[in-house]
Every structure is written in structure tokens, then in C-alpha cells.
């Protein structure tokens, strides 16, 4: 972990990963969209609307995944004063917020034809909305204080406290009655979705994952450069 505390080492690793991640993003989105829109059958109950699943579920998974990344990074930042970890949380937050917003929007667009409503205040939808506000709160705390260190501490603490929301999202469909369907992929007894639909779902999920890697690296480099610039500025002012 601390090997990556050095920005030069992070940049070297990032530069090695970047071309592969970019190629993988293009290929997986190409294959994923083909299977999502053409190469998979309509659902026997939902018809063509099932195709919303291939953009909704990966966005929802990634919204949670990125939150855990942000929380782990925040923990490392608070516990070990790890400077890159702090920047990793800051770099990840806007990406996670985007995924979460997309999960909410595509979910509403799936809910309207299937449930007859864009929105219900049930456990699943509400806890995902809470996750979206946690991301916004984290980003707002970074901007709210002049002192970068205090801002980073406050944001990191919020990210850690908000981690309690992740199991609530996951188990909300089991704990409370809801219109939202229960887990059908991440189940102990295996997926209950037909294989023809798992292909586009997993391809799109993989595409979202490598997309995250690419954008996260860009945002990390941006944060590292900003840190360098502010260090240079403060050194210059000391003269």
C-alpha cells in the first residue's frame, strides 16, 4: 500500500494500466451494447424493457463499489495520513456520484413502464438516494473549508460514517417490502436470471468497471498535479 504513496510510482503504474484499460473500455462497451440491444432476447414478462437492466444494474453496482473505494481510501487517509489515499477518495467521489445518479434515473425510467411509477419511497430507492447525497456531502465538505487538511478530514469522516448505508442498500429488498425486485444475480444459490441475459449484464458491468479505472486515473493525476501546484505556490510564497 505504501509503495503507492509515492506519486511517481502511482503515475508509473497508471501509465502502464491506462492503454489496456482504454482498449478494454471500448471493446467491452462495444460487445456489451451489442448484446444488450440486439444479441439478447426480450424478457417473457418485461418484454424489451428488460434492456434497461443492462445500464441500470451496472450503474447501481458501481455506485456502491466506488463508495467502498472512497470509504477505504478515507480510512487510509485518516488512519495513516496517507496523502495519495486522501486524493483517491476525492478523485473517486464524482465518478461514484455519476454512477449513483444514473442508477436512480435509469431505475425511474424502468419503474414507470414496469411498476407504473417513476419513484416509491421504499428502502431500496431511498437508501440509494441517501448514497447520492453522501457523495454530494463528501464533495461539498471538500469545498467548504479553506484549510485543505481540515476539509479532507471532515469529508473522510463523512465517507466512513456513510459506509453503514452500503449493507442497508444491499439488504433493503429483503428487510422491507418493496416494488423493487430482490437480488437475482448476487445470491448464495446462484443467479436466477437466464444466461442469455447474464452475458450482456456482465459485459456491461465489466465495461463500467474499466471505464471507472480510466476516469479514476485521469482524476487522480489531476488531483496529484493540483497538490504539486499548491506545494510549489506555498514554497514560492515562503521566499
Amino acid at each position: 500500500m505504501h509503495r503507492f504513496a509515492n506519486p511517481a510510482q502511482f503515475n508509473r503504474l497508471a501509465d502502464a494500466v491506462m492503454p489496456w484499460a482504454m482498449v478494454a473500455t471500448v471493446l467491452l462497451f462495444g460487445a456489451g451494447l451489442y448484446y444488450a440491444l440486439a444479441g439478447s432476447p426480450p424478457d417473457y414478462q418485461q418484454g424489451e424493457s428488460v434492456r434497461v437492466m443492462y445500464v441500470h444494474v451496472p450503474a447501481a453496482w458501481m455506485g456502491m463499489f466506488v463508495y467502498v473505494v472512497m470509504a477505504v481510501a478515507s480510512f487510509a487517509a485518516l488512519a495513516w495520513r496517507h496523502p495519495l489515499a486522501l486524493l483517491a477518495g476525492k478523485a473517486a467521489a464524482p465518478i461514484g456520484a455519476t454512477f449513483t445518479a444514473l442508477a436512480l434515473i435509469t431505475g425511474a425510467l424502468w419503474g414507470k413502464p414496469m411498476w407504473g411509477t417513476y419513484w416509491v419511497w421504499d428502502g431500496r430507492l431511498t437508501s440509494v438516494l441517501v448514497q447520492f447525497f453522501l457523495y454530494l456531502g463528501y464533495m461539498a465538505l471538500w469545498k467548504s473549508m479553506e484549510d485543505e487538511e481540515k476539509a479532507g478530514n471532515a469529508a473522510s469522516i463523512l465517507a466512513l460514517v456513510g459506509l453503514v448505508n452500503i449493507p442497508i442498500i444491499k439488504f433493503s429488498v429483503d428487510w422491507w417490502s418493496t416494488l423493487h425486485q430482490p437480488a437475482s444475480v448476487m445470491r448464495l444459490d446462484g443467479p436466477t436470471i437466464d444466461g442469455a441475459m447474464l452475458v450482456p449484464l456482465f459485459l456491461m458491468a465489466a465495461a463500467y468497471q474499466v471505464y471507472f479505472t480510466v476516469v479514476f486515473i485521469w482524476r487522480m493525476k489531476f488531483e496529484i498535479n493540483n497538490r504539486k501546484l499548491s506545494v510549489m505556490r506555498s514554497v514560492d510564497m515562503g521566499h
Partner: protein
Amino acid sequence: MAEFLDMGKHAVFIWTAYGFSAAALVVLALRSRASQKASEEQVAAARARRKGDN
């Protein structure tokens, strides 16, 4: 191709969901890339300035 684009009676919901997703992901990627590039140039410029001072 026509059959592939025919999404039935809920087509507008399906295409709106894909449209929002594509637009948001493309805009986020382009903006992240642009600010990374700009910051790269700012660091290079700041380094060049410091060399000039010494």
C-alpha cells in the same frame, strides 16, 4: 437493423435510459481528461518558471 432498433411500446423509456447513461459517462470522461491535461500543462509551466528564476 430495423428490428434491432424496434424496442416496442416502451421504446422511449429504454432509449432515454441509454441516452442519459451515454451522455453522463461521455461528459464525465471528457471533462476529467480535459482537466487532467490542463493540470499537466500548469505543472510544466510552473516548473519552467522556477527554472527561469534560478
